[in-house]
C-alpha cells in the first residue's frame, strides 16, 4: 500500500471533492493521522456526501479498512455498495479470508462476513475457513461464535455432521481449550437432536466416557471438569454415580495405589495419568458435592472436604468454601 499514490493524486478521483475532517483543537481528542489515512478518509467523506456507490468506492473502502479495520462506517458503506452494485460476493469473501486472518480480533471483520454469507446462502465453505482461522488463534471468541452462528442459522444436517470430529481434533491439539469444550456442549446438547443421536441416554454415556478419558490424561483441567458437571446436570444424573471414577483423583497418589490394584481393568473409570498432580481440587470439590446431595451422614464428609479445600488445597477461595460449609450446616438445622 505504501507504493500506491494518494487519492488526491489519482486522476480518476479528480471529480470527487474531498472533505476535510472536523478541525478543532480539542484536548483529550486530538487525532494526528498519517497522510495516507487523512487522504483516504477525506475522499470517503466526499463520496458519502454525494452518496456515490461505484466500483471505485470498493477500492477506497478497502484502502481505509486496511489502514484501520475498526472503521465501522467504511465497512458499512462498503457493504451497501456491494449490494447496490450486485458485486460478486464470493470475490468479496475471498478478500475477507485474507482480512479476517489479518484482523482476527476486529468485530467488523466477522460481522461483514455474516452479512455476506446471509446473501450467498452458502455456509459450507465457511466451516473450513473457520477451522483454518482457528489454527492461528485457537480460542478466538469471534471465530468460535461465528461458527456457532453458521451452524444454528443455516441448521443443515450436512453442516452438523462432522462437528464432533472437528471438536475432537481441536481438543487433541489443546485439551485445555475451553472454547472447544463449550462448542462440544453446544453441538451435543444445546442445538437440537440430530440423526443418529436420538438415544439420549446413549449420548450421555458416550459423552461421559469421552470426558473421563480427557480428565485421566490431564486431571487438572477446569474446562473438562466443567463439561463433566454440565453433562451430569443436563441429564439429571446424580454426581454420586461417578464416585468410583472421581475418588482416585481426589486423594494423593500414594493412597490410590490400593485402588489401582483392585480396579485395574475398569475401562469405565480410567485412572489419573502417573505424573498427574494429585489430589485434584476439582475432584475434591466434586466428591463434596456428591456427598452433599446424598445428605444425611454424608453431609459431614462434604464439610470435611470443603474444610480441606479452605485450609489446604484451595486457600485462595477460602471464603467460598467456608460459605459452602455454613450453608450446608444451616440447611441441616
Amino acid at each position, binding site marked *: 500500500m505504501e507504493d500506491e499514490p494518494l487519492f488526491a493524486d489519482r486522476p480518476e478521483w479528480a471529480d470527487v471533492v474531498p472533505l476535510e475532517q472536523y478541525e478543532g483543537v480539542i484536548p483529550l481528542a486530538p487525532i494526528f493521522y498519517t497522510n495516507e489515512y487523512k487522504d483516504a478518509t477525506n475522499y470517503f467523506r466526499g463520496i458519502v456526501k454525494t452518496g456515490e456507490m461505484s466500483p471505485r468506492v470498493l477500492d477506497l473502502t478497502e484502502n481505509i479498512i486496511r489502514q484501520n479495520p475498526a*472503521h465501522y462506517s467504511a465497512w458499512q458503506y462498503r457493504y451497501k455498495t456491494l449490494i447496490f452494485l450486485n458485486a460478486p460476493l464470493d470475490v468479496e469473501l475471498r478478500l475477507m479470508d485474507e482480512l479476517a486472518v489479518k484482523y482476527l480480533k476486529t468485530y467488523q471483520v466477522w460481522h461483514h462476513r455474516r452479512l455476506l454469507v446471509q446473501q450467498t446462502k452458502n455456509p459450507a465453505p465457511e466451516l473450513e475457513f473457520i477451522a483454518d482461522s482457528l489454527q492461528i488463534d485457537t480460542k478466538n471468541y469471534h471465530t468460535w461464535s461465528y461458527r456457532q452462528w453458521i451452524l444454528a442459522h443455516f441448521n443443515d444436517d450436512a453442516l452438523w455432521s462432522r462437528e464432533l470430529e472437528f471438536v475432537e481434533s481441536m481438543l487433541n491439539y489443546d485439551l485445555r481449550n475451553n472454547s472447544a469444550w463449550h462448542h462440544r456442549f453446544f453441538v451435543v446438547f444445546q442445538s437440537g437432536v440430530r440423526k443418529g443421536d436420538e438415544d439420549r441416554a446413549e449420548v450421555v454415556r458416550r459423552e461421559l466416557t469421552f470426558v473421563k478419558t480427557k480428565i485421566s490424561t490431564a486431571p487438572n*483441567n477446569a474446562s473438562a471438569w466443567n463439561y463433566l458437571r*454440565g453433562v451430569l446436570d443436563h441429564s439429571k444424573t446424580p454426581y454420586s454415580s461417578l464416585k468410583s471414577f472421581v475418588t482416585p483423583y481426589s486423594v494423593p497418589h500414594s493412597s490410590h495405589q490400593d485402588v489401582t490394584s483392585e480396579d485395574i481393568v475398569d475401562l469405565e473409570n480410567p485412572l489419573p495419568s502417573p505424573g498427574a498432580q494429585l489430589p485434584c481440587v476439582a475432584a475434591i470439590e466434586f466428591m463434596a458435592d456428591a456427598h452433599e446431595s446424598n445428605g444425611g451422614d454424608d453431609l459431614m464428609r462434604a464439610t470435611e472436604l470443603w474444610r480441606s479445600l479452605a485450609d489446604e488445597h484451595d486457600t485462595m477461595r477460602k*471464603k*467460598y468454601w467456608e460459605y459452602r460449609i455454613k450453608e450446608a450446616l444451616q440447611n441441616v438445622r
Partner: protein
Amino acid sequence: MTDLDIGNKLLVPLHVSYIKALGDSKDDLAYHLTAHLRMNAIYWGLTALCIMGHKDALDREEMIDFVMSCWDEQAGGFGAHPDHDAHILSTLSAIQILITQDALDRLDVDRVVKFILSLQQPSGVFAGDSFGETDTRFLYIAVNALSLLGRLSELDVERTVSYIRQCRNFDGGFGATAGAESHAAQVFVCVAALAILDRLDEVDQQTLCWWLSERQLPNGGLNGRPEKLEDVCYSFWVLSSLSILNKISWIDSEKLTSFILSAQDLETGGIADRPGDMVDVFHTHFGVAGLSLLGYPGLVDLDPVYCMPASIIEAKGLRKGWKALPRRSA
C-alpha cells in the same frame, strides 16, 4: 521508598497526570487507530478521575463541547468522534459523560431514546448501529442508557430478558450471542442488565458465582474464561458481577489488589493489562474501578451496575442492592 514500596500503593497523582496527558499525545501515531473509541476513552478517563477524587483534572466545558460535536443529527445518536456515524457504544458514553458533568440538559433525550429503541431486534437483542452487529454488550448499553434517562418504561422488557436467557450456558455464565461461550465481560453485561431490570431471578446464582470465583489465578489476577491468562480489566467484569450478586468476598481481595497494583507503570502512570505491558486508559479505568470495589483506601465508591460514581446513581434513585467491600482506612 524503594520501587517495591511504591508499587504497593495506587499512584494517584501519577495516574491523574497520565489521563490528563492523553489529550496532549500529539505525536502518537497509534492514536488515529483508536478514533472509533474516542468517546469511550473520555468516559473511561473521566470516571477513573472521579473515582480517584480528581474529577476536575479535565476541563468540563471542553469535554461537553467535544461530546456535543459528536452528535449525529441524522441518526439521533453520538458517534465516537465528530465525523463518525452514531453507534450505541459511544451514545452510552456520551450520556454517562453528560450526567457525570451535570449537563444532561444539552441532550435531546427523545431523539436518543428513539435511536436506542430502534436498534432492538425481533429476538430481543440490540444492534450496535444500523450495520446490524448484535451482542449482549449492546443490550446492556441500551438498558443502562434508558434507565439513566428515566425511560425504561418504553423498553419491551420481556423480549429483552428472553434474549439474555438464551445466552445462559451450562456453566452458569453468559455469552455474547445465543450459543456463544461464557465470558466474564459478557457475564457482567447480562447480570448488570438483569439487575437494572430487577430480574436477577434469571441468574443461576450459585453456579455463576462459583464460576466467577474460579476466575482467580494463583498470581491473584482474574481471567475471563477457564484456562486463559489473567488481565486487569477482568478485575472489573468479575468483581462487578460478584458485587451485584453480593458475593464479592469470594475473591481473595489482598491478592487481587496487589496484582492490579503490580500492573501500574511506575514512571509514566497508567495501568496495563498485566505487569510489564503497555498501559492504556481502558485498563487504567477498570483497574481503578476494581480497586474501588475492593474497598481500596481513599477511593470514591463506584456503582458496579452502571460503572459510574455511586453518588450520582444514588441521587437519581437508581441504586440496586449491590455490595462492595467496605472502604478501608489508609
